């Protein structure tokens, strides 16, 4: 070792490995407007597609007249279901085992449904031509209420008429999709029948939408000379899209290249396959030219995948002193006109069976009934793992309702029911095995930080002041404790359309000691290029700044199931660590050879291998990389590369404790968030700054959903919230200061102990904001009121409690 060798601390800092708040490498291009999104792709001779959409929620399509549109200069084609039928592409399979019309085949089932696809030389001509396509409709009775739909004679899905068996078992009615049951019904009912206390509540988790800033779109380019199809698109799972495109079109998979360029937010909205993608492909095949389709904001809100829309009824049993003894949950799930939920195949209601939450509940039962209505299809996990937001909202509301029933403090009720640290790994009543947790420590830290007892005291004083007429503002203390289930998932129980939910990483070390790693996932803003390089840096001793991370091109990236459900770090992050370890194992052999010692006599030290007991004898990873390519080493192949396909042994279970303090103007219904404290435990923390950013983003989307964001329909099935004037997207103005905090409970089965964090704040945030609103009125007898808590609904709650009299 010479004097110029930096000390260990400095070498470690130079790596920018795990645990450091490395700045996001993506931001240089994003903040300078140099990103490359689907709509930035411009190819020679490219045509533009646009949809004729149904103004009606339920109607028969009597006729479509293309003549006037075709006569407009610049219009190349107008495609209808009739044109797609010979290719068998007028319908497509959904991720949920159902099928969906690509273009209206005889009828439409929701407002905004795709009826015809206009292809023109110019985006403006396409839009003009859309107006010229004459469609004659015959209106049919509209069903927007799932309970009504289950009673109605009106058959929504005539294509399924007479089919009593669906993709997930028996169908009870022509508008019924499936019943999904989990747990022990008899046992749960027995506990409920004999319980000292039972709290019961029905809650509606309203329909909303992920609304990424970038809408959905694709550019398809069929090269008729070499038979290759290239498809750029807003895909959260590009490999799955390639496989599905191959199965649908019959084009062999090696002749399809799918590319997800930069993606401007996904939040679940870009997991599914949309008619626009299919139509751009068909149009490119038909015309022999590249075809671009990019939807506008209104189209995105009214036709692409929605989230939530769950009617949930719960019964929770407990002893008089608050020990929970059983939980019963029934869900009526409104899936819209087609079942296009994006869930693993065996989970038609996602992981709703995580609804026992963070509590040690001995017995539970869950049943979910999926129903068709005249609304847009979808049912994606908007910034959460599959239906986990619904599950956590459900249990966190049930806890509050039980606390009211027991006349008990809701924080204390949680504390006495938490799964204890020593119970992990813990098998919940509905089947999941929680990997690790320390809920009591997190909870105590949260309550202490916010001075919970002080808040309750202040709240009680406020209630008295309100009753004396000294104030018109009430104070709410919102609590939530959540357990997420992310990182889908073990191939033994998780697949999408038959494709196992593993993920992958492939690493190449270059001779001069820098590297490229490619993954099966795709960042939509999460900062993968930053964090995955950090994981690798720590594993292989090469600075994160010398590692390129690439994703999204199926011609180069290894096969993977994509990014959603907080699965990238738990699954692809694990693959990255494992592939890194393969590199390190080979590097160790090379180092030993170079240092002329036995393999076991060298050990890894930050960025080098050193001879055990003689640290002055070492080879850096740079030296090793060079030797790997340029020195003949007996018994060792040249090169330094590795691939890992990682099938996780279990899900990971991040958790957190959130507290929100809110002041509510009883007269106007305006809530003011005074304080929001979020403690997250996502296991090992890779980049604290990125975690903080993810928490801020997730909380902001939680605030949106809890306080106003919804896709609302009128009785005729018209979308009432089709623009950002009415669909609430919060800005810096509406967002409070977030206080973030953490504990670290690593996942025992993950190579680096990381659990995933992108969705936790949304999952935990929604019930926290909602509980704050509802808690403000607890002293006046409110048990439950549905979200979204926009001004008029808060006002209405106050009004119904007689607070305006």
């Amino acid at each position: 070792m010479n004097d110029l060798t930096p000390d260990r601390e400095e070498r470690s800092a130079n790596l920018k490995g795990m645990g450091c708040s490395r700045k996001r490498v993506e931001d240089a291009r994003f903040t300078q407007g140099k990103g490359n999104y689907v709509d930035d792709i411009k190819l020679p001779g490219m045509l533009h597609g646009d949809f004729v959409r149904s103004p009606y929620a339920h109607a028969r399509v009597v006729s479509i007249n293309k003549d006037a549109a075709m006569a407009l200069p610049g219009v190349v084609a107008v495609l209808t279901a009739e044109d797609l039928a010979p290719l068998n592409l007028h319908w497509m399979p959904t991720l949920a085992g159902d099928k969906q019309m690509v273009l209206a085949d005889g009828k439409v089932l929701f407002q905004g449904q795709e009826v015809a696809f206009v292809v023109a030389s110019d985006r403006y001509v396409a839009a003009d031509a859309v107006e010229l396509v004459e469609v004659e409709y015959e209106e049919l009775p509209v069903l927007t209420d799932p309970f009504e739909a289950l009673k109605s004679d009106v058959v929504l899905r005539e294509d399924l008429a007479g089919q009593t068996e669906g993709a997930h078992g028996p169908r009870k009615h022509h508008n019924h999709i499936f019943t999904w049951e989990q747990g022990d019904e008899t046992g749960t009912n027995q506990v409920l029948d004999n319980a000292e206390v039972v709290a019961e509540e029905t809650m509606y988790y309203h329909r909303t939408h992920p609304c990424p800033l970038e809408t959905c779109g694709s550019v398809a380019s069929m090269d008729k000379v070499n038979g290759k199809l290239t498809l750029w698109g807003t895909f959260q799972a590009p490999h799955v899209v390639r496989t599905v495109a191959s199965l649908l079109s019959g084009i062999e998979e090696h002749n399809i290249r799918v590319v997800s360029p930069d993606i401007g937010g996904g939040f679940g909205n870009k997991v599914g396959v949309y008619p626009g993608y299919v139509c751009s492909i068909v149009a490119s095949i038909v015309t022999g030219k590249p075809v671009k389709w990019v939807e506008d904001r209104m189209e995105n809100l009214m036709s692409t995948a929605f989230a939530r829309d769950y009617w949930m009824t719960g019964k929770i049993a407990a002893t008089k002193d608050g020990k929970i003894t059983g939980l019963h949950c029934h869900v009526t799930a409104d899936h819209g006109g087609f079942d296009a939920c994006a869930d693993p195949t065996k989970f038609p209601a996602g992981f709703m069976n995580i609804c026992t939450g963070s509590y040690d509940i001995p017995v539970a039962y869950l049943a979910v009934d999926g129903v068709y209505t005249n609304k847009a299809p979808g049912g994606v996990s908007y910034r959460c793992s599959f239906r986990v937001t619904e599950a956590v909202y459900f249990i966190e509301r049930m806890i509050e309702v039980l606390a009211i029933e027991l006349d008990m403090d809701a924080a204390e009720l949680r504390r006495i029911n938490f799964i204890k640290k020593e119970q992990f790994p813990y098998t919940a009543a509905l089947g999941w095995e929680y990997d690790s947790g320390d809920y009591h420590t997190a909870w105590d830290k949260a309550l202490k930080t916010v001075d919970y007892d002080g808040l309750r005291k202040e709240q009680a004083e406020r209630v008295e002041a309100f009753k004396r007429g000294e104030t018109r503002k009430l104070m709410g203390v919102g609590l939530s404790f959540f357990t997420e289930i992310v990182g889908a998932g073990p191939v033994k129980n998780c697949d999408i359309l038959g494709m196992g939910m593993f993920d992958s990483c492939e690493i190449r070390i270059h001779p001069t000691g820098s590297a490229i790693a490619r993954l099966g996932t795709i960042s939509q803003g999460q900062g993968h290029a930053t964090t995955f390089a950090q994981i690798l840096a720590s594993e292989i001793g090469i600075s994160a700044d010398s590692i390129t991370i690439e994703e999204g091109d199926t011609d180069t990236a290894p096969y993977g199931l994509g990014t959603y459900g907080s699965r990238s770090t738990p699954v692809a992050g694990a693959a990255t660590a494992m592939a890194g370890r393969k590199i390190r194992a080979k590097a160790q052999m090379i180092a030993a050879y170079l240092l002329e010692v036995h393999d076991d006599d060298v050990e890894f030290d930050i960025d080098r291998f050193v001879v055990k007991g003689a640290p002055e004898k070492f080879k850096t990873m740079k030296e090793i990389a060079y030797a790997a390519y340029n020195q003949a080493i007996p018994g060792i192949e040249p090169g330094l590369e590795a691939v890992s396909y990682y099938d996780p042994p279990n899900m990971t279970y991040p958790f957190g404790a959130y507290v929100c303090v809110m002041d509510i103007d009883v007269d106007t219904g305006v809530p003011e968030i005074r304080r929001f404290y979020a403690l997250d435990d996502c296991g090992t923390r890779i980049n604290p700054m990125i975690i903080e950013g993810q928490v801020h983003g997730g909380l902001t989307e939680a605030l949106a959903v809890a306080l106003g964001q919804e896709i609302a329909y009128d009785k005729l099935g018209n979308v009432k919230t089709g623009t950002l004037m009415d669909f609430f997207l919060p800005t810096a103005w509406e967002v409070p200061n977030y206080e973030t905090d953490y504990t670290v409970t690593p996942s025992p089965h993950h190579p680096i102990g990381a659990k995933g964090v992108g969705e936790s704040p949304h999952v935990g945030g929604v019930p926290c904001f909602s509980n704050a609103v509802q808690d403000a009125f607890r002293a006046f007898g409110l048990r439950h009121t549905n979200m979204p808590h926009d001004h008029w609904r808060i006002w209405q709650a106050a009004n119904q409690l007689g607070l305006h009299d």
Partner: protein
Amino acid sequence: MIPAAFDYYRPKGMDEVIALLQEHGDDARVMAGGHSLIPMMKLRMAEVPHLIDLQDIDGLSDISVDQGRITIGAMVTQHDLINHDGLTAAAPILREAALQIADPQVRYMGTVGGNVANGDPGNDMPGLMQCLDAQIHLIGPDGERTVAARDYYEAAYMTDREDDEVLVSVSMDTPQGGYAYEKQKRKIGDYATAAAAVQIVKVGGSVKSASVAMTNLSDVPVWSEAACDALVGTACDAAAVKSAVAAMLGDIDPAEDNRGPVAFKRHVAGIILTRAIERAWSRA
């Protein structure tokens, strides 16, 4: 969100603007900041085959405060209103209101003339102009004419302005006394759930004169003479405020929309007006 094709004009003089308006009649529209008109064109709710941009017309962007009279050119932006010290000193309610319109980006573009001319019940300037008893100055083929803001609005998007007239400015006497512009909205960039503009002159502990106008609670802005009358001569005490609110509620006619049902809007209108009166009184 793709507008239909249109011809774009950017004339240098008002004569040319009026000639174009006469030539194309209903098919032509002037554009100021474009932040109401362009969204309507993109939604294809407004068909404007001939779009006449007013940017290059001189003399429409001046603000003058002189001898008790304020004149604001049609092309003065909402941002300009906020940042004009003389105007803020003379009529602070203009700044208080403008700060509650849309968001900074929109305010850089949106103009006083466009906001007043548009005729959308959600716009904040019309009610404000009625509260201040502003005069609206129009120019047309037959020259200039002036209409009182209180007589200008006929129905949603229907105003006293003829198709071939252009709004050149608004003017008003420097307002006296205390003021308040109070607005409830769902989020930044939203139109009002309810808004109230109030000016009160206080003499010897009682209300000498008052002006009350409400926004987005009818298909036109509502200047409530009855509410004003309820305040004049009182000490602006709780009872007086209550009767002013009751009088105002008799004049508005809100419709249900995504902001809420009618009962909610009426309740909030009462609260907002109460707060506006109290604040104006405290400043009087």
